[in-house]
């Protein structure tokens, strides 16, 4: 399979906030302990990362792809960020107070922050950023995350208060959005098309240096960064559109890190050259892959049929085959290991006997002995659709096809180009079963995927799942401010959805990055490895690029 650039599917194009907050804003996390221990930070060497696609636009609230988000994450800061254990902590805000039962949030800003052009950062920048986001004329794609903001009030240059029309539980996390400089953007008519969209000025640990379209982007460590100067002097993002070539570059030292695929992780990394130079990491990626059933289709309206299909699937075999074991079975829409994930939810472990029984109960039998089940003269045929360009999904489809065939269910695979797939199949609900994936945001709100309101055409509840109880729980979860109560709500949502089995939840894949060994200070955590990037460093005698 050629890896089709820029469209490996949902994982890549998902959740801006996920990418920014979880993976890259976290980069700003300053290990204060480390700071005091190691008084003088020195910037050395360069870190060359790589990806298959170019960045698009380097304005945080327009960035809608992984690359732009990651670059924005290094150049800008939000008011908040999440730490290595995914707790919300201050970034540009020192601290904050929530008042009126969630109806107001007051941020107390850091006073030692300067924009890369030397101007001081103040509350005015914060107000400007969110007013711009909330202006419908801006066309910010994330506007709905801020829709409940009723008013913004500057108390003093370093204190700002947001008023909410109703409590919104994900609010603090959403304030991880990068803040842009008011003094540069104030007079700009169209921010999206402005010069700064391609040469950003932020407050982050790295300053923008150069962008050769289609080749690379270079950032330089900001010596005056408020936490401490980053240990790596230059951050380089190289565009290599072919993942096989990317791997060859990693081995030959042309790039310093990449995301390995399972095959590379296991079979290609045992050469002496790889072992001496490169470290591998693994942790659960924040995403899951599933088979979704169109609940408007008469075949799948029956719960028994869905349950039978679920029991007929051997997740372990799929994980072992497609991911070479680099994944965990999944039973619901939240990340395993978080308080929202219910370990006791019904799992539908592989049980072909139970599947056959359920099918029999539902009236399916192979009456003409052709290996395919029939009921009322109608054969049990399923069309599984997935998008082109994802080798994982195509292989999952082929294996599921085999596993269902063992029970007499004839599945036909359709692999369709991403855009046509969304336009013709998903948005129009013109499918029987789809294999797709969701990224899992840090905030558990699942309104846009599981609420009945999201069923309309173009909505993300394209399987038409509708459960009044789940709807109520989702609505409560969005307004509940107490973390413990909130977690309990989502565990209940998990149980309900798992019980209804509108998806067959398949697996959480592992993220498997590889980094050259000369980089020290990498500490894998629930947030991944990139969260403490500014603390990474290279010993003087191992420096590869000298400036």
């Amino acid at each position, binding site marked *: 399979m050629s890896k089709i650039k820029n469209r490996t599917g949902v994982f890549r194009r998902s959740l801006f906030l996920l990418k920014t907050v979880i993976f890259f804003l976290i980069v700003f996390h300053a290990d204060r302990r480390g700071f005091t221990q190691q008084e003088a930070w020195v910037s050395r060497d360069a870190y060359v990362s790589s990806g298959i696609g170019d960045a698009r636009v380097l304005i945080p609230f327009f960035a809608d792809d992984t690359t732009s988000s990651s670059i924005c994450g290094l150049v800008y800061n939000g008011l908040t960020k999440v730490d290595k254990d995914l707790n919300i902590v201050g970034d540009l805000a020192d601290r904050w107070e929530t008042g009126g039962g969630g109806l107001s949030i007051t941020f107390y800003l850091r006073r030692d922050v300067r924009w890369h052009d030397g101007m001081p950062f103040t509350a005015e920048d914060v107000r400007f950023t969110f007013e711009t986001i909330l202006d419908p004329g801006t066309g910010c*794609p994330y506007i709905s995350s801020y829709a409940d903001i009723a008013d913004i009030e500057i108390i003093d240059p370093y204190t700002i208060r947001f008023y909410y029309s109703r409590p919104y539980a994900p609010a603090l996390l959403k304030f991880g959005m990068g803040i842009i400089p008011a003094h540069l953007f104030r007079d700009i008519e169209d921010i999206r098309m402005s010069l700064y969209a391609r040469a950003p000025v932020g407050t982050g640990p790295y300053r923008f240096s150069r962008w050769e379209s289609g080749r690379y982007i270079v950032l330089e460590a900001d010596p005056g960064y408020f936490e401490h100067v980053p240990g790596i002097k230059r951050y380089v993002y190289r565009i290599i559109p072919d993942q096989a070539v990317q791997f060859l570059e990693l081995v030959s030292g042309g790039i310093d890190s990449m995301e390995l695929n399972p095959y590379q992780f296991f079979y290609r990394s045992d050469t002496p050259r790889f072992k001496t130079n490169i470290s591998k990491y693994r942790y659960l990626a924040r995403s899951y892959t599933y088979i979704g059933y169109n609940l408007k289709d008469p075949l799948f309206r029956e719960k028994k049929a869905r349950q039978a299909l679920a029991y007929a699937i051997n997740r372990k075999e799929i994980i072992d085959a497609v991911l070479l074991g680099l994944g965990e079975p999944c039973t619901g829409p939240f990340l395993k290991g978080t308080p929202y994930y219910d370990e006791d939810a019904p799992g539908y472990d592989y049980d072909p006997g139970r599947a056959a029984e359920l099918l029999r109960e539902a009236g399916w039998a192979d009456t003409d002995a052709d290996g395919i089940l029939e009921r009322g003269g109608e054969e049990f045929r399923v069309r599984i659709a997935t998008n082109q360009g994802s080798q994982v999904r195509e292989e999952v489809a082929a294996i599921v096809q085999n596993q269902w065939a063992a029970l007499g269910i004839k599945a036909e695979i359709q692999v369709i180009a991403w855009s046509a797939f969304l336009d013709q199949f998903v948005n129009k609900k013109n499918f029987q079963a789809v294999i797709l994936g969701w990224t899992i945001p840090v905030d558990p709100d699942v309104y846009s995927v599981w609420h009945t309101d999201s069923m309309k055409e173009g909505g993300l509840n394209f399987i038409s799942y509708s459960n009044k109880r789940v709807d109520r729980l989702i609505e409560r979860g969005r307004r509940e401010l107490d973390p413990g109560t909130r977690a309990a709500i989502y565990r209940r949502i998990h149980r309900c959805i798992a019980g209804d089995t509108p998806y067959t939840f398949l697996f959480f894949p592992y993220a498997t990055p590889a980094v050259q060994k000369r980089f020290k200070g990498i500490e894998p955590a629930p947030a991944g490895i990139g969260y403490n990037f500014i603390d990474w460093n290279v010993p003087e005698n191992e420096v590869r690029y000298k400036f």
Partner: protein
Amino acid sequence: MLRFIIKRLLLIIPMLIGISFIMFVIMHLAPGDPASMRYGLNPEVSESARADFSRMYDLDKPVMVQYALWMKRFLFLDFGRSLIDDRRVISKILSRLPATILLQAVSLLVIFFVAIPIGIVSAMRRNSIFDRVMTILVFAGYAMPTFWLALLLILVFGLRLQWFPISGMGPWYTAYLDGFARARDLIWHLVLPVAATAFGALAALSRYTRSSMIEAMGENYVLTARAKGLPENRVIIVHILRNALLPIVTIMGLTLPGLISGSFIFETIFAWPGMGRLGYEAIMNYDYPVVMGVGVIATFLTLLGILLSDIMYAVVDPRIRFEGKK
């Protein structure tokens, strides 16, 4: 001559209109919508954003209206903006064009300076071992899936022997080096892509040179020259070569569309930051304005190349008078 050139240049216009229309219709016949390409299945993206996006780029209007709008802008050489990153299409293309032109020009030079000598030697030493080996290579060149060749080149010379860099047009730090080091890096990075690009066309051209040399060798004036006792070198250079080269010039023009077609594959394999890769990515992203821009400019370049080869043909062969043609 001038009249001919102007006439040909004017002919380019209806051709570009025709081609742009065909491309536009193909793209809009197809299912799929760029807003879903840009925002995909992203639960964070507000529903209004998709509608805003479509409105911003006139995607909500009927196809013919969109084409008319495109045409209107095109008349002022405005290709609109990319649906993927909102940049001006023309500046996207211009930032990628030098890489493509460099690769193509170097490849053309290599083809020219390698294929013609091979053809000449093969023709003069017909059925020698050299000729036979070259014939085999030529046939292989015709039949070789060139992307496979590219992979083999990367595998052998890039990875195993480590003689040449695997991908890209120079390391990211070239910008921090002096001019000489930069040039050396660039040449180094050119070797494998040029080898892969040139190989197929090499076969065609050397074969062609060989046969037109053989043909010229049989002509009466060559026999006469030999009979007059002219030195063999002179016979070859003055009499045979000059006549044999004529048709080769036209062939060069015709290899151009092939080279540009190849660039869509090679630029992706070698991570060459050229227009071919831009076009491929634009197609994959349903980035209509960029697809249109790349298609129109690639066509324009091809037409220009063919026109140039026609002009060169006239320069090489004074017998040809364009006014007399047709």
